[in-house]
């Protein structure tokens, strides 16, 4: 009440907390901001268009998730789909990675149980951003194990907006990679914990996380080769100890047994070459530990003799057994997709389907800079700090970084695997440099002049301030770049296109959904639709009709047959279409709107794939070029090209359409030429539907005439 001469100054509540509590509060604040940021930066396309599934592959995942949510797990596991790959069908239960579908269906069921009715489609659309928030948190935990909490926070902030990861996990991109990156980093975190602690508990948790990873993505092969590589590196540098032994033995045994529970994986872990490294390292671990034990028991000379004998015997025996198994075919060689990572020219020379996928092309420097910006500069810095203080965990991240740089250089799609390790190493680099410089800041004002001339440090405090300012400016430019890239390049749904007209207003091209819904409502239930394999998943998911080939591309001969039909003349194509019971044909045509990913631009791939099998021998790529070797659709174009089925379907009635001011009718806006073959009639097809902007064209196959002519 009355003052007794004591000055009482009320301290703010923030300063009243102990340093540990301030520390925890700051960390939780930064982590939650990073998690919320990573969720919100992926919502551009939902805000601009609507909550819709993007691209091609996600439509298949959406259809299977819907089936799982409605029918239950056992029918899903035993599902044989007769509406795709007519007349072959596809065993869906045994040929997919079910992790994604099961995760979505579980979330859907849990929300329904809590009486929050969110539709399956919305769960699918927003699943990837949700898992990206979880990835942010796991990255923090992983980097904390590798270096310290400061690096963890920087890495978490960087991975929340890095474009390389956003490109495959934007809202609407409902694909395996959305959850696979989270599972991969979780497995790595638990592996590092297992290596550092050497307990079976952490090893078992790592095996369970590995099981989740195997169920979600085919890229688990990377993990099951990176972890043994890490163990070998530790052996070579002399860091093998009982902790690594326990960790790897637990992870390998439990992990392999769990991974074989997925039907798609089956017995591959003991049969295919991609898994043999893990098995070999498991054997090597046992031998190494046994040798260490025996060495501690035997006198030196006896040990030398025994050691040399065992080495020669084992090496010889394993080479013999391995050779015999490979030659007799019990161990299958590396499959095409993974072999092309080791020998990049293999796909280009041998398997045109793998070579034609745009995501499988090698990477150029601009893709690296575009997807990572500041991180490509900080990657060597992080590596430098890891190399200067080598620990068991640092060696792992170095191996991860080096291998993923190489794989990202081979295939653009694998930039996704590179992005997390870039963030982790950049976080380590940024945090270490800023910590060293922050310690040199002279905040107190006393005795600056005298101190400066004593040591031979040059303007210690000023240099520190300059460096910190420069670093912060670089991080700010990183943020601007990432947001710009996300907004402009990675947020387009591909199923809905938008463009600006000359007066500035936006035109929306919703032709794809218009065509698929026309198919759904105006064709009989058992109609078969032929199109190029790109559109297969979308047709089954939205139009609900049977198709011949889809994006799974598991049967090259069937796709080649479709390619032959597209590339042949009408009469020959009619034979193929009657053989396959085709009722409708669907093509994508971009000549009116200027949409450049249409079927005419993909046509050469149809010719190559069509001519790559036995029955397509008569289709040669050279026939479709002009005598001077150009691919032209105007008057100079090759007559075989101007009369093939694809050309006729795309340009039927196009010869009388004016597309641009000052150009003749029938001017193709993508190829920038007037078409060569204008006024023709179709003999075996009749036009069923053309969408508003002529993007999708559907034709009905005429039945055989009743009387022989």
């Amino acid at each position: 009440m009355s003052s007794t001469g004591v000055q009482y100054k009320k301290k703010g509540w923030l300063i009243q907390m102990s340093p540990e509590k301030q520390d925890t509060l700051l960390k939780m604040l930064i982590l939650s901001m990073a998690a919320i940021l990573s969720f919100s930066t992926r919502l551009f396309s939902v805000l601009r268009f609507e909550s819709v599934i993007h691209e091609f592959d996600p439509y298949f995942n959406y259809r299977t998730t819907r089936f799982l949510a409605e029918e239950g797990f056992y029918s899903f596991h035993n599902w044989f789909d007769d509406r795709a790959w007519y007349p072959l069908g596809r065993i869906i239960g045994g040929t997919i990675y079910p992790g994604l579908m099961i995760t979505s269906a579980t979330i859907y069921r849990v929300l329904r149980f809590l009486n929050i009715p969110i539709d399956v489609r919305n769960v699918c659309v927003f699943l990837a951003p949700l898992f990206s928030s979880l990835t942010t948190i796991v990255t923090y935990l992983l980097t904390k194990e590798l270096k310290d909490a400061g690096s963890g926070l920087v890495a978490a902030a960087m991975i929340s907006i890095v474009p390389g990861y956003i490109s495959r996990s934007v809202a609407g991109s409902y694909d395996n990679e959305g959850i696979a990156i989270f599972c991969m980093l979780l497995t790595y975190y638990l592996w590092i914990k297992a290596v550092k602690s050497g307990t079976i508990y952490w090893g078992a948790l790592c095996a369970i996380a590995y099981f989740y990873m195997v169920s979600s993505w085919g890229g688990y092969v990377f993990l099951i080769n990176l972890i043994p590589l890490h163990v070998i590196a530790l052996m070579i540098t002399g860091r093998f100890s009982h902790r690594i032994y326990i960790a790897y033995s637990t992870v390998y045994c439990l992990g392999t047994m769990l991974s074989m529970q997925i039907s798609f994986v089956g017995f591959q872990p003991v049969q295919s070459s991609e898994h043999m490294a893990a098995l070999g390292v498991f054997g090597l671990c046992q031998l190494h530990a046994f040798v260490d034990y025996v060495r501690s028991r035997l006198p030196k000379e006896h040990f030398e003799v025994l050691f040399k004998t065992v080495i020669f015997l084992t090496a010889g025996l394993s080479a013999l057994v391995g050779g015999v198994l490979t030659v007799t075919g019990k161990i299958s060689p590396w499959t095409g997709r993974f072999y092309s990572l080791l020998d990049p020219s293999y796909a280009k020379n041998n398997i045109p389907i793998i070579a034609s996928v745009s995501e499988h092309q090698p990477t150029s420097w601009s893709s690296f800079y575009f997807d990572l910006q500041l991180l490509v500069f900080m990657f060597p810095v992080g590596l430098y700090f890891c190399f200067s203080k080598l620990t068991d965990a640092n060696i792992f991240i170095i191996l991860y970084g080096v291998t993923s740089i190489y794989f990202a250089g081979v295939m653009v799609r694998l930039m996704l695997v590179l992005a997390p390790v870039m963030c982790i190493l950049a976080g380590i680099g940024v945090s270490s440099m800023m910590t060293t410089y922050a310690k040199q800041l002279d905040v107190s004002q006393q005795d600056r002049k005298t101190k400066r001339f004593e040591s031979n440090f040059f303007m210690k405090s000023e240099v520190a301030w300059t460096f910190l300012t420069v670093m912060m400016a670089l991080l700010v430019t990183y943020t601007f770049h990432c947001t710009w890239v996300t907004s402009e390049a990675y947020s387009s749904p591909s199923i809905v296109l938008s463009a600006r007209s000359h007066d500035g207003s936006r035109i929306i091209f919703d032709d794809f959904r218009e065509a698929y819904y026309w198919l759904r409502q105006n064709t009989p239930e058992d109609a078969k639709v032929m199109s190029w394999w790109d559109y297969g998943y979308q047709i089954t998911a939205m139009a609900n009709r049977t198709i011949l080939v889809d994006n799974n591309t598991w049967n090259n001969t069937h796709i080649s047959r479709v390619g032959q039909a597209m590339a042949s003349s009408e009469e020959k194509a009619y034979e193929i279409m009657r053989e396959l019971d085709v009722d409708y044909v669907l093509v994508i045509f971009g000549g009116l709107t200027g949409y450049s990913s249409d079927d005419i631009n993909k046509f050469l791939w149809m010719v190559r794939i069509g001519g790559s099998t036995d029955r397509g021998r008569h289709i040669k790529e050279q026939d479709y070029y002009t005598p001077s070797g150009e691919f032209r659709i105007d008057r100079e174009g090759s007559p075989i090209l101007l009369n093939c089925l694809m050309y006729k379907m795309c340009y039927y009635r196009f010869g009388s359409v004016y597309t641009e001011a000052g150009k003749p009718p029938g001017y193709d806006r993508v190829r920038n030429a007037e078409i060569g073959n204008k006024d023709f009639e179709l003999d075996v097809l009749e036009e069923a539907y053309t969408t508003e902007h002529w993007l999708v064209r559907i034709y009905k196959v005429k039945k055989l005439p009743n009387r022989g002519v």
Partner: protein
Amino acid sequence: MEIAYSLPFAVLEIPNLKLKRPSWLHQPSAMVMYSLVLASYFLVCGGIIYDVIVEPPSIGSTVDEHGHSKPVAFMPYRVNGQYIMEGLASSFLFTIGGLGFVVLDQTHNPSTPRLNRILLISVGFVCILVSFFTCWVFMRMKLPGYLQ
């Protein structure tokens, strides 16, 4: 055990060889490994695998209005394509930028003379700033709509 061990020598004769492990062969130090990794980083980021598979020209060329062919350094409008020289130039900048930070980290030793420290600090800052800014300019030249 001795019987099994001496069995091959009933048939074979031991040659009089003296093989020694060469003394210069030892495990490389951490920094040697780091420089090897950095060299491979330079090559891969320069798009060497793209160059081997797609075989682009070293420098592109266009024809201007008078019919003379002009060289084009950057393949325009495409993020996923490059010429060989532009790839190597950019990855050189990436590596130099990273090394700038490493140089700055070496300036904290109290026993280096003053002049050396000043030089190292300025080299470090110049490396970082020039490479970052030049890469930004390169990207703008490649993608005219970059950061609008």
